[in-house]
């Protein structure tokens, strides 16, 4: 039985519950159900068979793509965090409030253009005859093949995630109580030890969330591996495209999607535990 206060709470939560249900849980369940369907004569038929799962998880192509995607997304999260940190540090500790706000606003500007447009821009810049190779050629290096390689994919991933990682990191660094940093200094910590022993632990939540966001966005990205990485080796997102194109195999693509969602859920849960969890 629901008492009055329970009913009150439920009423306020109802819109959120309905919204989440309609736009998240229901489609997800639908997709999960679809993995058991059959495709006959290029048409999907509701059924309950395990063939899709057996066919996808039993193939080396799937697992190769799975590990490649996982590894590259993790690497993107790591590289983005390392590359973003000096920028975030300067923004948080060396700039005034007004300057910081302006730069953070500028970091949002890239999102005004489609990521696809930015990927095409990289195609021009990184091309065999592009400006980067022209400059490197001027000092007797190259030309380097940067497109259609894992390097190209990584450039794409970083373009996608770096601004967000900088924003996350800057917020968490700027939120550190300055007295903590001074206290470390006062207690004999060198600047490097202050960074390692106080600033990084104090900003742990934001730093981890930034890395996880970079991982999640890279993990599901299709544009970078397809347009800058030349689709080789295929990532899970490319595998999904290929599977749907070949014989309308939507149920098998759904298997890949479900596997991706499970992986992301597991990663996000582990990261949140690490980010907010208490030590000891």
């Amino acid at each position: 039985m629901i008492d009055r206060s329970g009913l009150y709470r439920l009423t306020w939560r109802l819109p959120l519950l309905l919204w989440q249900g309609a736009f998240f849980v229901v489609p997800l369940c639908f997709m999960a159900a679809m993995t058991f369907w059959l495709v006959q004569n290029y048409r999907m038929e509701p059924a309950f068979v395990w063939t899709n799962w057996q066919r996808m998880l039993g193939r080396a192509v799937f697992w190769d793509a799975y590990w490649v995607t996982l590894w590259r997304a993790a690497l993107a999260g790591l590289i983005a965090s390392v590359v973003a940190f000096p920028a975030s540090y300067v923004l948080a500790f060396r700039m005034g409030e007004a300057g910081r706000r302006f730069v953070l606003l500028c970091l949002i500007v890239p999102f005004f253009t489609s990521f696809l447009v930015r990927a095409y821009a990289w195609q021009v810049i990184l091309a065999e005859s592009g400006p980067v190779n022209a400059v490197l050629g001027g000092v007797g290096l190259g030309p380097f093949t940067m497109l259609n390689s894992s390097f190209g994919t990584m450039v794409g991933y970083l373009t996608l995630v770096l601004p967000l990682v900088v924003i996350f990191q800057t917020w968490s660094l700027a939120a550190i109580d300055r007295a903590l940093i001074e206290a470390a200094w006062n207690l004999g910590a060198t600047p490097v030890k202050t960074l390692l022993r106080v600033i990084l632990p104090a900003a742990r939540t934001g730093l981890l969330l930034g890395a996880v966001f970079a991982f999640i966005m890279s993990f599901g990205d299709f544009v970078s591996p397809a347009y800058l990485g030349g689709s080789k080796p295929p990532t899970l997102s490319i595998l999904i495209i290929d599977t749907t194109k070949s014989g309308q195999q939507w149920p098998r693509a759904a298997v890949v999607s479900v596997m991706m969602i499970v992986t992301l859920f597991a990663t996000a849960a582990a990261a949140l535990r690490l980010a907010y969890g208490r030590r000891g």
Partner: protein
Amino acid sequence: MTDPTPTPLVQFRGVRKLYGSAIAVKSLDLDIGRGEFVALMGPSGCGKTTTLRMLAGLETPTAGSITIGGKLMNDVPAHQRDTPLVWQSLALFPFLSVVENVEFGLRMRGVAAGERRSRAMMWLERMGLQGFEARRIDQLSGGQRQRVALARSLVTEPEMLLLDEPLSALDAHLVIRMQGVLTKLQRELGITFVYVTHSHSEAFAMADRVVIMGHGEIEQIGAPREIFRTPRSRFVAEFVGRNNIIAGVVAGGILSSEHGAFPIAAPDGSAEIVVAADTVTVLRAPPEAGPAVKVAFLSEEFAGTGIICYFEAADGSEFKAQVTEEQLADLQPEPGAAFWLSWDPARVHVMGG
């Protein structure tokens, strides 16, 4: 109390600190002796915290010199000094346990794990925190955190401890307890305490010497009693509180003021006198002899040591008198009721003389 003159631990000489064009400290000359408990006191913005932070190396003086133990400290970075500071916010590390907080300073100095743990545990025990070592900071009460902060600062056994309004965030009853803890600790350790506060009660209760600062300068240095009884300027007299200040012109041993003429031992010319609230007698009728000011009663306030009564003179200026509970019961003052204030001319302090 140690005599600060022979070998001062700390010497400020012509120290000046500017933030842009804003003056935080104008020109500071100050000696602090070994084993001395010095309170830097003043209203906010007077430069007391800046002075403390320069001592810790968290700020660099714009001009002048600061020496500790005879060594010029101006360019010594904070982490190479042993001048631990207890922050107003305590600044305990929330991501470390209690014992990890305490051993932080030892760890930064490369003390081996076993030794630093045992020294940290010894300090926790000394602070009455045994059994709390594995706790997180947010699992402690305000008073316990205070003691963790003290242990963390003292674990390296420094010659000097700096305290920046460490009690201002505590409940009133804890403040008194912690005052006791601090004075006892300072006496037992025999090290120098430099204590910044805006609270007279804290400074006067604990310090050997009080330094009153205003507008980036030292207004007066002295023992608590000296500052309280013989303030050198109107600024000090007003800041210390519970003083009545009367300004006027002296001619032939008589001070003529807006409140009347009073006998006084001062040379001719303009003068300001201080009549401490606890030397004022409240009367229902004008006294037969001696100074008297006619006032109207405003309100009373219970202070730990007695009751402060507030009055208003004819020109609107405020007068204070300290009375006992029995005296208050006798007087039964109503707001607006007329009284006469009198005092012993011998106990009047003439300022600036």
